[in-house]
């Protein structure tokens, strides 16, 4: 392929000089030849990929199935008939995870944005809030979320204060929101800081107020930049809602646990795992795509 002289014939259809604008472009013989070669290369690549996949995956499968533990493994984890029997209960539990995700994500978006804006503002009136926000972020990013869930979920009811809820679902959600707001605030803040200072100056010199500059110029650019990491956090959030099961919330994990402890079979856990994957895998793929687009856009901007 490298023997083809690319430069010499790189202008296909340049024969009829005057009529060139009117003649539809036809690929030259050279280009047709190149396409044929590329097609052949593609075919070969597909064949190699399929062969190696069949070989590797097939070997793994055969080794697994013929191993002495295979029978007891499938009986313990993949007893599908039993799995489908308990599936409705697990799905019911999973709706709690989804609901919790939606409510928590909304609260985290609002709370995280408030913290990020406080931390990036330069207004002297907000100085005490800026200090508080910094402390907040430092503390709650540094503690395992499981500890926060335990502290909030069991600690607050232990206070026996009137007017405070003992509802484990609300307490669990609160703990998740507290932790995730700290993460998301930092992601948003980094997005705000990467907007070039000239953009702010340009907006201010047009007469836009501080708030208008934030609303129309800074935030739209910042949010676009941090969409991929925010989507990553959303995937983590969905998974981490499973942690509130420790408080006794009947979510998918808890529902699976109940079924499993009755039958001494672990298939319910596998069913719960599959439910989580059905949501998280598409979301992860989507995140990947968004990230690729973001990078492409950034490269395009760098060239302009």
């Amino acid at each position: 392929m490298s023997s083809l002289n690319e430069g010499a014939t790189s202008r296909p259809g340049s024969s009829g000089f005057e009529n060139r604008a009117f003649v539809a472009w036809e690929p030259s013989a050279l280009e047709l030849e190149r396409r044929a070669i590329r097609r052949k290369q593609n075919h070969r690549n597909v064949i190699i990929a399929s062969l190696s996949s069949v070989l590797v995956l097939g070997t793994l499968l055969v080794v697994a199935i013929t191993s002495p533990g295979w029978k007891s493994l499938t009986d313990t984890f993949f007893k599908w008939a039993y799995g489908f029997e308990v599936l409705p209960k697990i799905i019911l539990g999973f709706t709690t995870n989804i609901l919790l995700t939606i409510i928590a994500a909304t609260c985290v978006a609002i709370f995280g944005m408030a913290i990020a804006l406080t931390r990036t503002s330069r207004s002297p009136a907000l100085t005490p809030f800026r200090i508080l926000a910094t402390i907040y972020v430092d503390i709650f990013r540094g503690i395992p979320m499981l500890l926060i869930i335990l502290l909030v979920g069991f600690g607050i009811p232990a206070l026996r204060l009137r007017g405070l809820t003992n509802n484990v679902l609300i307490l669990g959600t609160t703990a998740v929101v507290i932790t995730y707001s700290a993460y998301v605030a930092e992601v948003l803040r980094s997005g705000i800081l990467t907007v070039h200072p000239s953009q702010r100056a340009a907006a201010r010199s047009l007469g836009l107020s501080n708030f208008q500059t934030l609303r129309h110029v800074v935030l739209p650019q910042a949010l676009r930049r941090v969409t991929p990491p925010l989507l990553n956090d959303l995937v983590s959030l969905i998974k981490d809602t499973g942690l509130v099961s420790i408080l006794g919330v009947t979510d998918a994990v808890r529902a699976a646990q109940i079924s499993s402890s009755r039958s001494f079979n672990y298939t319910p856990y596998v069913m719960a795992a599959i439910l989580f994957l059905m949501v998280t895998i598409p979301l992860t793929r989507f995140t990947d795509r968004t990230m690729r687009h973001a990078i492409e856009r950034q490269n395009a901007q760098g060239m302009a």
Partner: protein
Amino acid sequence: MSAHVLSLVGVRKSFGSEVVLEDISFNVPVHTATVFIGASGSGKSTLLRCINLLDGIDDGVISLDGQSISDPRVNTDEIRRKLGMVFQSFNLFPHMTVMENVTLAPIRVQGLTKSDAEEQAAELLKRFGLLDKAKSYPDRLSGGQQQRVAIIRSLAVRPRLLLLDEITSALDPVLVNEVLSTVRDLKRDGMTMVLATHEMGFAKQVADEVCFLHKGRIVEWGSPEQVIDSPRDPRTQDFLKRVHEAGRL
């Protein structure tokens, strides 16, 4: 009302212990262009930023149409509406189309309806030959087109005074000319301007007055012929000699 659109008296600006502008005084009469030349770091950008109230000054007075704008009690947003500014780069908002860039301030600041603002913007874009780019995003425009859109955007709020800070220094020579011809058009239309530039040929074409800035002080000023073609101050002579050697005259 004063005959001068802009006047500075004894303006001083420092960053920490570094004095960047010292004893700057000049007047800009209506419909004229004042061009600042000077070495990199001489304080040209800082001067324009101070006039636009993006940076505060340490001493002196800046007045716009006879009203002091360096008074801490003035409404800075209101003053900035009367001033248009175009920077060296990163002017346009990358998440907005050309049309949205140009109509943002008329809609949000001046309170025009969207259709009125777009009509006015289309007229401006058409006048400067950029109407076909109205729906494009900035990253689809050439550097020269981007700077011209930035100029148009600052015109859309009908400023009293336009501040242009080395608007061609990030462009290659071919694109420089199209931006400069846009500025010449503005000059012909009677826009009052303060510019900072490295292009001496351009300075000669548009300037009514040229000021040479050296280490934060205006050491020589006058007509472009006088300052650029027959400078009297040895520091101006030295600067122009170096510009000449760099092949920019």
